């Protein structure tokens, strides 16, 4: 009874839908590898379109198709936004395709499932880690704004990302930033009665309430991570780099002060508060540690790195912060430099070599997490200065890294930062409605037309930056140093090798099935 493949039946009617085969794509090269599975860059044979294929690992699954993948698929199909990675389709490779280990045991599905994503050239961490590359302030504002816009959209749609970090923020060569890797994300509602797991979010970006064992939480957990990234971008390296959970908490308290019932009402009722509360009183030092940030940046950072999650700023309010509406304004994504894509030039051999190196580095770093010698952005030092020329004046200073092209070419472009701020923000800085087809930024045209993704109607989230900033002053884009040929691999669709190398991952919880009660 076994055997005849369906095609041989040659019957007139075949099932009219279902998933396509992975054979519709030609795998070009592996661009990421993590606990979750491999990620490949691939070309769709019919259209020539370049995509990313993320393999869903099916082994070690007693419960069939992984619930994490179900969540990710559900959430990605629901979210249609220009700052959220687009899941184009799901393809399968039917039949027994041996995995790398040649395992074939058990009753497990041995075919493979792949999620097909639009291809993105970089991730934020990969970009930031490029030797000699430094972000400009308008560029950081531009990325932060896109991050917050995408995250606000998620939160409005009641999705918590739960793994916001640089390597999950993908960037294409049009300057678009998109949230990716929703493998830990889940839907929530404010009336959600059940408990959620606190074993989420990569340690360095994990908020204090989770570290203290909270199992009821909301969008504010993601906002802490955003704060960490924001500070990291301005500071030039990760800011809270604990090796384990107690150390992470300690680092947070050293920076943000010790929590008590005054600055965080109710903190003493969080499960592990008594276990982890610091023995001595600590002062909040955010302003002191980051005194080199400009005033508006510092003000916003303070609100993001607020210990009490109920007082922490929301994505929506953060988008309204002065920071994004004062000079230098966020630049237009399209004005950002196009960085070389790492993939085209890498031979297979080089990749293997690199992967080995990364493996080594990973092992070393896991033992001794190191801080990255990343270049902080070009910005004014000392007192906050709204005056643009002063700001620009500091631009030509290639901090530290000689030999690399300095950030700006100098010249008259500096004066662009001096443009007036544009129309004063009215009661609402965002034009109502007006959005937007959630089309993917021009790079790869939208193909998944059948998904009903025609513009979520005027929801309460800010769809578009106001015109003044969208067409705002260009960053000094001419002067970026081109990275040296062996810059690190910069695309990871979550859980990539570089990710792991950057610090303890989510305490290993991706390898374990969650307990079903606590999600």
């Amino acid at each position: 009874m076994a055997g005849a493949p369906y095609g041989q039946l040659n019957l007139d009617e075949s099932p009219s839908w279902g998933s396509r085969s992975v054979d519709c794509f030609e795998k070009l090269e592996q661009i990421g590898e993590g606990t979750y599975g491999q990620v490949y860059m691939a070309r769709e044979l019919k259209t020539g379109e370049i995509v990313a294929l993320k393999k869903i690992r099916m082994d070690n699954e007693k419960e069939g198709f992984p619930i994490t993948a179900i969540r990710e698929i559900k959430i990605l199909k629901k979210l249609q936004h220009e700052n959220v990675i687009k899941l184009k389709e799901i393809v399968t490779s039917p039949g027994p395709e041996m995995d790398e280990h040649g395992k074939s045991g058990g009753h497990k599905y041995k075919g493979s499932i792949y999620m097909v994503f639009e291809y993105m050239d970089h991730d934020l961490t990969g970009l930031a880690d490029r030797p000699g590359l430094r972000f400009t302030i308008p560029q950081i504002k531009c990325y932060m704004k896109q991050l917050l816009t995408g995250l606000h959209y998620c939160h409005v749609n009641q999705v918590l990302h739960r793994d916001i970090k640089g390597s999950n923020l993908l960037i294409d060569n049009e300057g678009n930033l998109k949230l990716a890797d929703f493998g830990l994300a889940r839907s929530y509602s404010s009336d959600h009665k059940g408990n959620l797991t606190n074993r989420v979010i990569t340690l360095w970006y994990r908020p204090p309430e989770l570290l203290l064992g909270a199992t009821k939480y909301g969008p504010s957990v993601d906002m802490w991570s955003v704060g960490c990234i924001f500070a990291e971008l301005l500071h030039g390296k990760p800011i809270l780099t604990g090796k384990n959970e107690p150390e992470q908490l300690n680092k947070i308290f050293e920076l943000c002060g010790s929590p008590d019932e005054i600055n965080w009402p109710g903190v003493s009722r969080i499960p592990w508060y008594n276990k982890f509360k610091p023995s001595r009183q600590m002062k909040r030092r955010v302003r002191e540690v980051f005194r080199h940030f400009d005033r508006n940046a510092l003000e916003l950072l303070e609100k993001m790195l607020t210990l009490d999650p109920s007082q922490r700023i929301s994505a929506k309010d953060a988008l309204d912060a002065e920071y994004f509406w004062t000079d230098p304004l966020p630049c237009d994504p399209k004005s950002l430099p196009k960085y070389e894509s790492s993939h085209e030039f890498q031979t297979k051999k080089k990749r293997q070599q690199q992967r080995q190196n990364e493996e080594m580095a990973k092992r070393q770093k896991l033992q001794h997490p190191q801080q990255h010698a990343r270049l902080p952005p070009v910005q004014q030092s000392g007192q906050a200065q709204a005056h643009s020329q002063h700001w620009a004046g500091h631009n030509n200073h290639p901090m530290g890294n000689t030999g690399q092209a300095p950030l700006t070419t100098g010249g008259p472009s500096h004066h662009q930062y001096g443009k007036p701020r544009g129309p004063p923000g009215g009661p609402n800085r965002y034009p109502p409605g007006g959005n937007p087809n959630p089309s993917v930024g021009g790079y790869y045209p939208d193909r998944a037309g059948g998904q009903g993704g025609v513009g979520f109607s005027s929801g309460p989230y800010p769809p578009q930056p106001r015109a003044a900033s969208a067409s705002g002053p260009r960053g000094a884009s001419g002067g970026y140093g081109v990275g040296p040929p062996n810059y690190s691999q910069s695309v990871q669709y979550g859980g990539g090798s570089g990710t792991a190398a950057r610090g303890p991952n989510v305490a290993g919880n991706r390898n374990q099935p969650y307990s079903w009660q606590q999600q």
Partner: protein
Amino acid sequence: MADFLTSTHRSKWIFVPQDLKEKYKAANHRAKQMLEKYGATRVDVDLDGSLAYPELQSDVKDNAEKHSRSKPLKIDEEQLLRAFYEFKIQDVCDAFKFPRKIQATALIYFKRFYLQWSVMEHHPKDIMLTCIYTACKAEENHVSAEELGKGIDQDHQVILNNEMVVLQSLGFDLIVYSPYRSIDGFIDDMEDFIYSNNGQLQHLKDLHETAKMVADKTMRTEAPLLFSPGQLALAALRRSNEEHQVVDFERYLNKILSRQHPARPVSELTIYLNAIDQLVNKLVTPTAADMKHIDRKLKYCRDPGSHEKSKKRKHRSKD
């Protein structure tokens, strides 16, 4: 906002009656052809999730003899069989005390699956279980396959083996909208509409409960493949209101239409609600006894081997 309006449910899984007819016919026709050619219709789901179709029997004579015995199910017999297992889905979900949302999701998965497969190809008992299992996963109410299998005395491996074919047949469109949330919403809205005093609040509660029960029935008709969850909800509420007489329904419909679609006449909506009502009126719940004949037929055409065996068994019991 991502909601029903932007969902795959709306864009891909709402049909017109003619679509459904054609799809059922096509699936039935395909299985029939398979039976004629190969003498069996069962599509095996291998342990690795791949599908295996019946092979051409080498012994043509034997084959001809077999399929003379195995009669394919007719379209209406297939429909009855599905109806039986849809009722079963609610039964099993009740036994596990799953929320209505899961029941509805499992039912919709089941319905969508059989838009492309014949019950002769994949046995509805197996698919029913996998649909429940997958609905639990998708609705964040996870139950292990083993637990589910145990609870109803079925091999949990079957549940897992069919998961891929179900997910693929659903095109991984896992978010479905059921009428229950819409009913809750309309009830909330009616509270303001009738400026309720306490007495009326109790009536509203009754209206709510009955409407949910009507919706349970509606979910077993074809209506969820034809109408939006909001329409299903209004039809259930209208039916419930006929019993309880809590609101002036016509006026209520007018009110919500004027708010949401001022250009659309109530009469148009009423046509939809009437159509849903008719489907609910026509709903039959086959009993196990009704199923006996169809079940036997199904067994024979899925796998004539079992026919032989059962015949032999019969012989033996006679001896």
